[in-house]
């Protein structure tokens, strides 16, 4: 190492002095770029930042009570109890005929696990305050990650003749496979009709035979019973299994149920009712879809079943969406043979990927524009040096973000775009000062190394303080509460990191690169000051 006579007064100069001839600097630079790239690749991608929103809904049914009664004996006491829970911001009560619903919303940012536990505890401790006849309380915690699906797929049948339950059965099979994919939390079906044996009684025939509905109910229920097989041993110690065959196996069995004996003759169920192996006719919910056919015209409405998939918290939406798509392709052929088609109606993974890629492109574009600008003003070598510092700073920031469990989303990338303008500052100021000293006559006698360190050291103190000032402006933003505060959190979390990184990178790499790349002008005949 060469002898360096200049004694720096500021950290900036000290850092520059340590690294300017160290062989480790290059390795460090490459290492930083590598971890940055790795972080960009492995960090989970999402469209919107994760928000911590906690809350629980408590549902208590009391059949036969009117809305006003429910309000007095269920909703009001429940509201009072939930108000005792710390961290609850708002309590919403809804009293309807037969049922009371109370929703406790926690302050934004209150951790989900603790919040759910507190509500559950409170309800269980006070199970005695609910009126007799009330059903067991149902507690449904809110879980944004699990509740909001990232992918939804609509399945529909082309074949008009296909029975309503066949579609449901096919989709149900696929649901099971998709649920088995890694990091998939919940899959849910909307729409579709389930299997059901329907007994539709004709009221006229019922009164004709002088029967009541109660008799029919009793007759069917007494036969629809499954019993486990009994086990016994024979005298020579062999096991004998004795099973009772289910009385009702098919429609025929149900049709032949004897509901009553009237004037000596038996009355079968088929005589008073229509029995069918069909779908749940009492379900009023229905999901429909219209898609464009090959000619771009809309088809008529078709019944559909939507399969929605949600992911575990902190996992990569992009990867899961792709996995789901791949899994679906495996079944595509089989489904189409049966006349079932599907269309992906929501793909947040794709949306997230698009948003992230677009912003990365913007980021690169900005860096190029700034590089061109600097090349004109300071020269291409100086410009190249500053341009190198940007990916290095972003790499460090990304890595820190990855370590702190953040995801790449729209807001994180905007935080980067915002800091981009700020984080080239330190490097620009250092390189500009080096440039100025390099080109000035007064410092012509100094060695390049010394000059670099001196130039870096000179602007060290104000740059440190100025960067600290910008970091300080960002700190209060971290304390903004509400949804908006949560939403914007990546800005106060990442910009300060980027700024601190920008200081170190500017002090370490700018002089290191400058001493190797910059050409010193010849001051022997002329020179500007």
């Amino acid at each position, binding site marked *: 190492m060469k002898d360096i006579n200049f004694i720096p007064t500021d950290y900036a100069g000290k850092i520059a002095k340590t690294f300017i001839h160290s062989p480790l600097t290059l390795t460090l630079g490459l290492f930083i770029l590598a971890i940055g790239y790795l972080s960009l690749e492995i960090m989970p991608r999402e469209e919107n930042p994760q928000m911590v929103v906690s809350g629980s809904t408590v549902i208590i049914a009391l059949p036969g009570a009117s809305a006003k009664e429910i309000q007095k004996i269920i909703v009001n006491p429940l509201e009072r109890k939930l108000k005792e829970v710390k961290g609850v911001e708002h309590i*919403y009560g809804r009293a309807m005929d037969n049922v009371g619903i109370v929703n406790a919303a926690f302050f934004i940012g209150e951790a989900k696990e603790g919040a759910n536990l507190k509500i559950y505890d409170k309800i269980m401790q006070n199970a005695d305050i609910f009126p007799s006849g009330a059903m067991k309380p149902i507690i449904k915690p809110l879980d944004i990650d699990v509740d909001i699906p990232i992918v939804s797929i609509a399945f529909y049948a082309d074949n008009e003749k296909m029975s309503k339950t066949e579609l449901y059965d096919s989709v149900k099979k696929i649901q099971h496979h998709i649920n088995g994919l890694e990091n998939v939390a919940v899959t849910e079906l909307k729409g579709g009709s389930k299997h059901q044996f329907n007994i539709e*009684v004709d009221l006229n025939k019922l009164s004709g035979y002088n029967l009541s509905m109660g008799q029919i*109910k009793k007759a*069917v229920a007494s036969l629809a*019973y499954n019993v486990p097989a009994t086990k016994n041993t024979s005298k020579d110690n062999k096991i004998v299994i004795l099973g009772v065959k289910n009385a009702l196996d098919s429609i025929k069995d149900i049709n032949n149920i004897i509901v009553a004996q009237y004037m000596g003759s038996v009355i079968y169920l088929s005589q008073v009712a229509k029995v069918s192996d069909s779908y749940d006719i009492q379900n009023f919910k229905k999901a429909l879809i219209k898609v464009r056919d090959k000619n771009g015209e*809309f088809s008529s409405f078709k019944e559909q079943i939507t399969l929605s998939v949600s992911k575990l918290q902190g996992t990569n939406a992009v990867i899961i969406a792709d996995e789901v798509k791949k899994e679906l392709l495996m079944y595509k052929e089989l489904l189409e043979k049966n006349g079932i088609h599907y269309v992906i109606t929501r793909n947040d993974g794709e949306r997230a990927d698009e948003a992230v890629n677009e912003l990365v492109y913007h980021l690169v574009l900005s860096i190029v524009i700034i590089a061109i600008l600097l090349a004109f003003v300071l020269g291409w070598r100086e410009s190249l040096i500053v341009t190198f510092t940007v990916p290095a700073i972003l790499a460090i920031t990304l890595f820190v973000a990855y370590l702190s469990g953040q995801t790449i989303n729209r807001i994180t990338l905007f935080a980067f775009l915002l800091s981009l*303008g700020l984080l080239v500052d330190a490097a620009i100021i250092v390189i500009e000062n080096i440039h100025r000293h390099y080109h000035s006559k007064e410092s012509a006698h100094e060695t390049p190394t010394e000059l670099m360190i001196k130039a870096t050291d000179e602007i060290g103190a104000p740059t440190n303080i100025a960067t600290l000032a910008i970091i300080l*402006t960002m700190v209060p933003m971290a304390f903004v509460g509400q*949804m908006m505060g949560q939403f914007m959190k990546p800005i106060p979390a990442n910009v300060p990191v980027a700024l601190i990184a920008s200081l170190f990178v500017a002090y370490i790499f700018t002089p290191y690169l400058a001493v190797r790349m910059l050409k010193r002008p010849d001051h022997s005949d002329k020179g500007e000051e």
Partner: protein
Amino acid sequence: MFKKFENFIHKAIQSSSQRKLILIVTLIAFVLSILMIAPSKMVLAKMLPGKNNDTFNIYVTLATGSSISQTQEVTSCVSAILTQEKELRDLEVFLGMGSPLDFAGLIKGSQFKNSENVAELVLNLTKKHHRDEPSYLMVQRLRPIVQSQCQSLYKGTKISFVEPPAGPPTMAAIVAEIYGDNAEGIRKLSSRVSDVFHHTDGLVDIDIMQDDIFDTFKIVVNNTKIVRSGVDIEQLNNIIYLAFEGMQIAVKNSELYNDQVPIYLSLSKESKSFTRKDLNAIKVKLGALKLMNTQGIMIPLTELVSVIAEKSHPMILSKNLHMMSNVMAETDMVSQVYPLMDARETILENFSDTYKIKKIGLFNLQLTDKESGKVYKLIWDGEMEVTLDTFVELGAAFIAALVLIFLLMVVYYKSYAISGIILLGSFLSIIGVIVGHFVMDLFTVETFFLTATSLIGFIALIGISSRNSLLLIDYTKSLMINKGMDQASAIAHSAATRAKPIFLTAVAIMLASTLLAGDAVFGGLGVSLIFGTVAAVIASLLVVPVLLNIIDLEKHFDIN
């Protein structure tokens, strides 16, 4: 060029008339820009602007008590209009339930939808890069057509357009919470408030969160007859439920199917439907139903009960233990602040006939019924409240940032005067922020709002412009100490020397922000940074030197 600038500064800061001129011009610019926001409404404030999406939802809600087929009729009407849209890729209808949950639905209670009078439509559009019309303009165009054609099919039908929010979701743009002690009074007041909303410009999708009251019938059991006839009430209840609603009376396990197969018992559709919706039809039908008593004798239901007509019991809502109702409205591409103010004005003017009105808090009202003396409260909530809270909190963050910077400067320079100058200089960037928004508003088709992200940009700007001032002052100091320059020439020389890096960093920030400026959500941030930086550069190269020369730097730098 920098030499010229040095001379100009040198002259300017020494001549008292030019000094005054610079300061007065700055002051006028500052006051004018503040005026642009507050009274003149030239720059409008909103939390977050609309965002161009590839999808949006339409919520259809009929009057409570409507049937699923009526709901389907309305959705068919809506989809007939929608399918004429070229940019529509596919259209889903979810009848009687909510669509797969999204951010907006989570807050609007889409996951709890489970009745025959509701439906949700999901529209998937072509990718936004290949589409000329942004989704928010499409919504604005379709809304009046769909609502005028389909809302009139059944009275009380509400069709609302729900777009994925650009930021955090809220219940609605404007929510008026009406609190009170009696349900009747709340109902009356809510409908009056909703009337006001209907007549306020810029408000759409107005809805009251309450059940409609509709006709129902009630079976009244004759106790004496029940006891005498030897049947019990449970039996009676079961029979009525079984006959009309139907019940899954048993299940069958099956290896063929994925679920247990229920056995469902009910009257057939033809025999259970009433001929008309009136008392007599119901009585006739009930007469055909029979119960078997303990002796095995069949007794017609009508022997035991009578039927009366009744009004339904609407749902009772409460928030934080107070009975209430919500009147909600969305804004049609305008900021929610101004329609809210208009609506509040109208309420203040028109409601004084029946209510005594008192203002509470910032915008909230307390209304006392003149006749009954009952007290109601009107509290604003929704996006408005969130906006207000966010702006207040960001404002607090801004002040905290100013204080922190001031303290930092005092620690560094050990001088209140210099720290004050730096702070003043950085505060001036607000001129750029506001003028920038005004200019952008002139050049864009839609209103360009001052948003929460604009404020974030402004906060970042204080840091940036104090950095400029800092570099300037620091160099001046070193010139005065090391080279023994006099105050005025040191300031001028420093301004000229530092102009280059200040310009460079400013241009870097502006270039990096141009890409932000195009985004819906972060446009405000971008515009703030671009125009604010311009103001900051002018402030630190012109105003700060002038201010610096007013004070005695030698004393403040502690030279000697």
